[in-house]
Every structure is written in C-alpha cells, then in structure tokens.
C-alpha cells in the first residue's frame, strides 16, 4: 500500500506536465475608441467589423492593444482611458473547449463571466470618452 504513493505521485506529475503544456493561451486585449467623427476602421479591428458596425458610431480607432500568453488560471489587468482598469481573469477551459473568463471594471462596479471560443472575442463597450465611447475587446486563442 505504501509503495502506491510513488507511482501515484509520478503518474499525477505526468498528467500535470501534459496539462501544463495544454493550458497556455494567447490573450489579446484591444482598447478601441468609438466616435461619430468621420468614417474610420483601423486595420487592427477588421475582425471586429461586423460587431462594431452595429453600433451608432462610425469611427473606430485602436488606442491600445496588448497580447499576452496566459495560463488558464491567471489574471490580466489593463488600464484604459478614464483611469479605469479592466481585469480579465481566466477560469479554466469549459467542457465545450472554450476558455472561461471573468471581466471586471471596478470603477463601474461591473462584472461579467463569459466563455470565449478559439479566435472569438468578447467585447465590453460603453464607458464614455472624448465624444465617444471606449470599447474593450478580449480575444483568446490557444497556443
């Protein structure tokens, strides 16, 4: 019975190592400024064109963008205009294979949970900024 401890630990470590290799993701967070001044769509936002076009804004400028490799349980924070912070926490992989994330903007007392499929994006928009609004886009892909 005591000899069971070693193989159990080694087998667990083997699976843990495999899981470690499978649990890294590339997360990109984009900060977008949407206004009604002119017509503009930055090249870095082309993949979001359908989503942004449904808004009452005509100009979409990419203010900031960061891409980071994250594990499936990690917290990433990004400051956006208005001295506000977006906090994105990864919560593991859902049964359907999507990445579970929590988004929080403390100043707005806003929290949301979402499951993000590979290459798809969850957007959070609305905070006013310079005659327009800020839109935050969180995209996840597995490495």
């Amino acid at each position: 019975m005591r000899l069971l401890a070693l193989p159990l630990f080694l087998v667990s470590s083997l699976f843990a190592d495999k899981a470690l290799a499978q649990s890294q993701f590339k997360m990109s967070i984009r900060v977008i400024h949407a206004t009604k001044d002119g017509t503009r769509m930055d090249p870095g936002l082309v993949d979001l064109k359908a989503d942004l076009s449904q808004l009452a804004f005509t100009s979409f400028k990419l203010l900031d963008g960061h891409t980071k490799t994250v594990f499936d349980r990690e917290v990433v924070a990004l400051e956006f205009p208005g001295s506000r912070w977006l906090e994105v926490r990864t919560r593991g992989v859902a049964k359907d294979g999507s990445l579970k994330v929590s988004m929080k903007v403390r100043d707005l007392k806003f929290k949301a949970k979402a499951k993000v499929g590979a290459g798809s994006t969850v957007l959070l928009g609305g905070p006013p900024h310079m005659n327009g609004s800020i839109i935050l886009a969180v995209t996840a892909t597995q490495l």
Partner: protein
Amino acid sequence: MWKDDLEGLMMLLDGVLDPTQEALWRARLADEPELAQQWSELQTLRQKLNEGLKEELSPDFTQRVMRAVRHTEQVPPSLWDRLTAFLSRPIAIPISVAAALALMWSIGLPSATSPTSSAPVIAAQSAAPASALASGETEIESIDNPTDYNVLVLAAPGSPNRMIWISQRTPSDEG
C-alpha cells in the same frame, strides 16, 4: 511497561513526588515484579551515569574524537534513500495524494478535485481532451452590474463574438 509508569518511576527516582504519590508508587513496586525490575534498572542506570560523569577525560579526548570524525567518510543520505525513507512512513500516502492534487489544481487540470484515488484523474483527462480551444461563439454566462447602468448584449449576424454594452441609466429609463 507503560509510558506513564516509566515517567512515574523517573519522577520517583528524581524525588519530585509528594509523599502520598511516593507511598503509592512504593506500594506498587512491592506488588508488581515487572515494575520493580524496571525500577531496579533505572536505579542502576542512574548510578552508572553518576559514576561516568565523575571520570576524568583524557587530555587529548577532543583531538581523538575530531581525528576519528575527519577520518570517517561523511556521506549524506542519497535522494533515493531519503525518498524511500519518506515513502516508508504511513503519512506518505495522504501527503503524496494531497501534493499531486494541489499541483494539478494549481495548474488548472479540469475535474481533478477528487481526493479518493488516481482513477478520476485519468477519467478527467480522457473525458476532457481540451487539446485546443474549441472554435465557436462567445457565450456570455452572467453579468453582474449595479442598477444604475443599462446592459445590452449584442450579437452581430454571423459573428461568433458577443458585445456587452453598458450605458448610464437616465431618469427617463426609470420612469
């Protein structure tokens, strides 16, 4: 010989028992041969110890001991020896299981929370391959917002993305 008996005998030997307790122990020593034997051994040991402490050490005692130490190969226990020694202890199993589960939990292995055996871990691996993020739509699970904001979830036709739009609630919204 019980541990309590040994402690009692040692207290008797040290002379720290009160008269009543001492009388009780003396009565037991008279009635219990095994206890009396232990008492005799303790007394002998105390006597030898006292005699030993009276002996003078030779002047080169320290040098001889240190010389012997230097000439003795100092080999630390190998990793294998330490591992087998640890695994020979009964506490090894729960510690190993707990360490393995904590490791898997910390790196986010899905559904590996059962502390019972390794079987659920293996099952969890095969049931949730998760070799890559499934391509698909983003799904909003829950939104927790204060009452002073309106929240809309927008989905463009054909887009896998989802947008949460928050806007300040106005008095007309409440009316």
